[in-house]
């Protein structure tokens, strides 16, 4: 995420990280034989789905206005 | 695996190698039966459509045109698999494979009753029908990738339509099944088929259509949309998109998409028969034949819809999915859960 500059690819990478967390949660839930890990993984999935939806909607709106290939092109609001 | 009520005489299941052997044989048998059955679904559709449109339909090859499908299959196998310039080779080849695999995989959990208490299934998972829903939602990748890889704007439009359509209808499909789960209390198809009621003098299996009619209607509409059949065949749309995602496909790969579509019809018909029509229970008639009759009738409904209804416009399709089926599904879940709590 530090090197890739395409905002779409950044979103994809966030999903990848969340998936990694899910795998750990489910693996430990099996190891420790409690179901909380799986419930947590389900919560992560819903949050990730919401995040992806909002992120993609923002991206589509931005791409309608201008053609960009680097997230740093969007830093006009920098304080 | 095949579960028989009779004891296992040769000790096949207790021995792991024999167990895997039986499972693999069962899978191959099922795939063979399914692909053959799909060919006859196509034949049935052409005959029925011909009958509806007052034309003969296939009647040249074999008695009554019965071998038309064999002729078409041989033609498709030996036709050149042409790929135009500029296609994404890998995705272009992989897409038809995904289409067939996504439909075949769902059959892993679909049980088929044979006679009395003897049923046949490959795997007995706790999530049951969720697996079928999950796997059949992979079908959209085939269509999107086929449309993307073809390097053709009409194909791309078809693929995008497929994605939008799938997202709208999958919600309604899942929601329509929730009342069934609430009533039965299980997701396994065996439990759903074997659902029995004890109402006064009557005690026995009951088709869930009587208990959840709204679910059946929503599921039927969503199933037609999921298989991309008319009146929801917007990804193909011969008149507007010259065949949509199928435009650049020919020969064997085209036949794989074709097989996937009709296999999808067969899968959804079997699912509806199992979910809402009591599966293999029919008085006086043995299981396999009862299921066969129900599936043939449901396949006929799919064909009937194609023969009578015009294709929906794109915005009408989205409006139907989001503004009609989804609220109806939510209301259905609410009412059914209240009734289930009150009556139990």
């Amino acid at each position, binding site marked *: 995420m530090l090197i890739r500059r395409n905002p*779409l690819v950044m979103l994809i990478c966030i999903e990848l990280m969340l998936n990694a967390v*899910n*795998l750990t949660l489910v693996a430990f*839930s099996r190891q420790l034989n409690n179901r909380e890990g*799986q419930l947590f*993984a389900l919560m992560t999935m819903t949050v990730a789905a919401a995040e992806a939806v909002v992120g993609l909607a923002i991206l589509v709106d931005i791409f309608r206005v201008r053609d960009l290939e680097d997230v740093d092109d969007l830093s006009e609001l920098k304080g | 695996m095949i579960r028989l009520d009779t004891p296992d005489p040769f000790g096949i299941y207790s021995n792991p190698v024999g167990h895997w052997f039986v499972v693999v044989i069962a899978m191959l048998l099922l795939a063979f039966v399914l692909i053959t059955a799909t060919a006859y679904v196509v034949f049935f559709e052409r005959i029925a459509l011909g009958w509806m449109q007052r034309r003969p339909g296939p009647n040249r090859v074999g008695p009554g045109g019965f071998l038309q499908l064999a002729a078409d299959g041989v033609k498709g196998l030996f036709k050149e698999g042409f790929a135009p310039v500029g296609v994404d080779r890998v995705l272009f080849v992989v897409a038809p494979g995904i289409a067939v695999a996504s439909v075949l995989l769902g059959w892993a959990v679909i049980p088929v009753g044979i006679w009395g208490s003897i049923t046949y299934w490959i795997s007995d998972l706790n999530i049951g029908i*969720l697996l079928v829903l999950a796997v059949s939602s992979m079908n959209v990748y085939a269509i999107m990738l086929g449309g993307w890889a073809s390097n053709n704007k009409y194909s791309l439009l078809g693929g995008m339509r497929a994605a939008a359509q799938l997202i709208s209808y999958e919600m309604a499909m899942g929601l329509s099944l929730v009342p069934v789960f609430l009533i039965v209390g299980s997701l396994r198809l065996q439990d759903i088929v074997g659902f029995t009621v004890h109402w006064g003098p009557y005690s026995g299996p009951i088709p869930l259509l009587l208990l959840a009619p709204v679910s059946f209607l929503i599921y039927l509409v969503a199933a037609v949309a999921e298989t991309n059949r008319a009146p929801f065949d917007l990804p193909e749309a011969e008149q507007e998109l010259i065949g949509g995602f199928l435009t650049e496909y020919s020969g064997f790969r085209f036949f794989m998409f074709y097989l996937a579509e009709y296999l999808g019809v067969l899968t959804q018909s079997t699912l509806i028969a199992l979910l809402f029509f009591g599966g293999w229970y029919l008085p006086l008639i043995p299981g396999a034949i009862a299921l066969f009759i129900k599936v043939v009738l449901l396949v006929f409904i799919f064909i009937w819809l194609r023969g009578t209804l015009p294709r929906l416009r794109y915005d009408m399709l989205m409006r139907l999915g989001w503004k009609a089926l989804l609220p109806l599904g939510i209301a259905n879940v609410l009412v059914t859960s209240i009734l289930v709590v009150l009556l139990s």
Partner: protein
Amino acid sequence: MGPATIVFWLASAVALAGGLGVVLFKEPIRNVLSLVLVMLSLAVLFLLLSAQFVFAVQVIVYAGAVMVLFLFVITLLGPVREQGTVRLPWQIFISAVVIAAFAGFLVAMLRGVSYRTPDAADPIFGSVQSIGVGLFTDYLFPFELTSILLLVAAVGC
């Protein structure tokens, strides 16, 4: 080595290859497809960990809906190839340092771990029933919070 072990190694290899693909491919569509591959192989791993419901949700929600949305946006925006313009060259250096530190941390942590095989799971572990009971009794409040979050996400866009 039973069939479960073979499936485990296959799924892990596919997941790792897909993860590399996500990071290394230059066209966004290949990134998304690699991520789908990762998700499907993770779903297989969930099944091996007897988390059947999480498996189904993973395939339906992630692979079936979220990734289709990504693919849809990519086809909507058209084929964009990423230019290899590196405006911030020190970022590569910093990320390399962070990766090395993290890898060292992981190795140090794993050296002190003793492994045991998990207890045999009871048949209802990870089933729809146990997940449902968990969601609607002990964890009702977070469950309702996520439903509000989803509502906001659905309405707000």
